[in-house]
C-alpha cells in the first residue's frame, strides 16, 4: 500500500527521486564537512556545481523534446578556449563582456547546426550530435592546442566570491533558469515541447510545428552550453580544450536521476538541475573519502553508471509486483 503511494508520487513528481537522493547526499556531506552550510562553503560548492546545473537544464529541454545532445561538452570546450585565448589574463572587463556576448552567439550557432541536421534533415539525434561533438572538440583543440590562456582575475574573482544579498551568485542563476522554465512551461511552447517529445508523429498530425520545436530545443541547449562554458571559464580562470569533454555524460546522468525520461516527453527541468547538484555532492563525497588517486576515475564512473541504472532497477521491481 505504502509502495503504491510512492509509485504514484514519483510518477506525479518526477523530481522527487532526485530530491530524495539529494537529501541523502547532503546528509552524508554534512557528516563529512560539518560547516557545509556556512556561507563560504556553500558558495564554494555552488560555484563548482553551477556549470553542470546549467548544462543539465539545456540537456533536459532537448531530451524532453525527444532528442539528445551529445555535443554540449564540445560547445563548452569551444567557449572556454575562445574566452581564454581572446580575452587573456591582461584583458579588460569590456573585452570580457564583449566575448561573453560573442560566446552566446556561438552557442546558438552550434545549437542551430545540430538542430538543422536533426530537425530539418531528419537525422538520428544521437549519432548526429556525436559527429558534431567530434567536430566541435576539433575546433576547440584548433583554437587552443595546449592548455593555457586565461581571463582577468577580477572577473573570476567576481564569479567566485560575489554574494549579493548574502546568497551565492549561483542561486540567482538557478532561480532565473527556473523562472524562465516555469514561464515557458505555461506557454504554448511548453505544451508543444511535451507533445513533440511524447510522440512526434501524433504531434505533427495535430498541427504542432514539430520541426521548429525540435530545432529550437537544440538552439536552447547550445545557448545553455555556452553559458555553462562561460561559467566554467570564470570558475577555472584558464583555458583547456578538454574542459568540456567529460561533461556530456554527466549532464545526461543528471537528467536521468532528475526523473526526466530519456525517451522524451516526461519530466521537467527542475529535476535535472537537482540531479546535477546531487551529482556534485556525490563527487564531493568521493573526494572526501580520500581514496587512492588511481581509483578515482573508476569510482566516479561507477557511480555514474549506478545512477543511470537506478530508474531501470526501480522499474524492474515495479513490474515484478502484481
Amino acid at each position: 500500500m505504502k509502495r503504491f503511494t510512492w509509485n504514484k508520487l514519483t510518477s506525479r513528481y518526477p523530481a522527487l527521486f532526485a530530491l530524495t537522493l539529494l537529501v541523502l547526499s547532503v546528509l552524508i556531506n554534512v557528516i563529512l564537512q560539518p560547516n557545509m552550510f556556512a556561507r563560504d562553503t556553500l558558495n564554494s560548492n555552488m560555484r563548482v556545481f553551477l556549470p553542470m546545473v546549467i548544462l543539465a537544464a539545456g540537456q533536459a529541454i532537448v531530451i524532453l523534446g525527444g532528442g539528445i545532445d551529445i555535443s554540449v561538452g564540445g560547445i563548452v570546450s569551444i567557449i572556454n578556449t575562445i574566452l581564454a585565448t581572446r580575452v587573456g589574463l591582461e584583458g579588460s572587463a569590456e573585452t570580457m563582456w564583449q566575448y561573453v556576448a560573442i560566446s552566446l552567439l556561438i552557442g546558438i550557432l552550434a545549437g542551430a547546426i545540430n538542430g538543422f541536421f536533426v530537425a530539418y534533415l531528419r537525422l538520428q539525434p544521437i549519432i548526429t550530435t556525436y559527429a558534431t561533438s567530434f567536430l566541435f572538440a576539433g575546433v576547440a583543440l584548433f583554437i587552443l592546442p595546449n592548455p593555457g590562456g586565461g581571463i582577468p582575475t577580477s572577473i573570476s574573482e567576481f564569479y567566485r566570491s560575489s554574494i549579493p544579498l548574502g546568497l551565492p551568485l549561483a542561486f540567482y542563476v538557478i532561480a532565473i533558469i527556473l523562472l524562465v522554465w516555469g514561464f515557458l512551461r505555461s506557454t504554448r511552447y511548453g505544451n508543444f515541447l511535451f507533445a513533440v517529445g511524447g510522440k512526434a508523429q501524433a504531434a505533427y498530425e495535430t498541427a504542432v510545428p514539430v520541426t521548429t520545436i525540435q530545432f529550437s530545443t537544440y538552439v536552447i541547449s547550445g545557448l545553455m552550453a555556452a553559458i555553462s562554458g562561460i561559467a566554467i571559464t570564470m570558475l577555472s580562470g584558464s583555458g583547456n580544450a578538454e574542459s568540456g569533454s567529460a561533461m556530456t555524460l554527466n549532464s545526461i546522468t543528471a537528467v536521468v536521476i532528475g526523473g526526466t525520461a530519456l525517451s522524451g516527453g516526461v519530466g521537467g527541468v527542475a529535476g535535472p538541475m537537482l540531479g546535477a547538484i546531487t551529482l556534485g555532492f556525490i563527487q564531493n563525497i568521493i573526494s572526501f573519502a580520500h581514496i587512492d588517486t588511481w581509483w578515482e576515475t573508476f569510482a566516479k564512473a561507477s557511480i555514474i553508471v549506478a545512477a543511470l541504472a537506478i530508474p531501470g532497477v526501480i522499474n524492474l521491481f515495479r513490474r515484478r509486483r502484481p
Partner: protein
Amino acid sequence: MKRIKISPPVAALFLAIVLFLLSGLLPNSYGSDVKIAISQATNIVRLAVFLGVIAAGQTLVIISGFEGIDLSAGSVVTLTAIVTYVYVNGADEKVFVALLLSLAVGAVIGLLNGAGITFLKISPFVMTLGMSGVVTGIVIILNHGNVSGKVAPIMTRLIARPISPDIPIPGAIVIWVIFGILMWLLLERTSFGKYLFAIGVNRVTAKLSGVNVTGMNLATYALAGALAGFGGFLVVGNTGVVLISLGQPFLFPSIAAVAVGGTLLSGGKGSYWGSMAGAILLTLMTSLLTTMQMPESVRRMVLGATLLVLISIYGRQRALRQ
C-alpha cells in the same frame, strides 16, 4: 532516366583508390615510383586491419538496431592490450591463453553492456559511454603509472611482419581476410545473423516470429565486446608497447567506418564487407592528413564532418509527412 546505383562498399573502395592515386601528387609522397606506391598501399591496408577488427563488433551492435552502438570499444581495446602485454610477458607459449583471456575480458564487459541495455533499459549510447569510463578506470588502476610486460616474438612475427620474405604481405592482412570470411559466414549463413538483421529491422515482429530478442541482444553486445578484445590483442601485437590512450583513437573511426560501408545506423541493414572498405578509406584519410602534417584538431574536424556528411546521405529518417 534510370539512376545508377553503386553499393556503398564499392563506392568506399573506389573513393579510397582515387584518394590514394591523388595522394601521389603530394610533394612528400611516392611520386612515380610504383614499387614504393605498392608498399605504401600495403601498409595502409595493414593499418586498416586494426580499425577493421574493432569495427566488426561495432557493425554487429549497429545492425542489431534500437540505436545500438558500442562506445566502450576503445577502452576495451586498451584494457585487453594491457592484459595481453602483462600476461604474455615475452613468452610464446602464453600467447594462446592471452588471446582467450582478451576475448573473455571483452565478452564480460560486453555482456554487462547488454545487461544494462536489455534489463535496465538504459539507452545503448549512454550505457556504453558510462561503461567506457568504468573500463578506463580499471585501466588506470591496472596501469598504476606504468606496467611491465612484453609482447611475445610470435605475435610480432604473425601480426606485424610479412608472411614470408618472398611475399611482402603482412600477417595482419591474412588474419583480416580470414576474419572477414568468418564475419560474412556469421552474418549471412547462420541463424544468429538472420536473427540479428530481424531484430534490427523490427523488434516486435522479430519477437512475434519467435526470435529470443533478449538473448540476441545480450549475445550481440557480448560478441561485440569480445571482438573489441580481439582488436586489443592485435593492436598490442603490432605496436609492441602499451599506452593508456591506445584504444580511444579507434573509437570514432570505428563508427564512421561502419557508416561509410553503408550499414544503416538505425539498424537492420549492413555488411561487414562495407565496414572493411570503410576501415581502409578512413585509415587512408587519417594517414593522408598525417602526411600533410595536419594537427590532431584538423583530423578530428575532418572525421566529424565526414560522419556528418555520411549520415546525411544514408541516415535520413522517414519524413513526418507521408
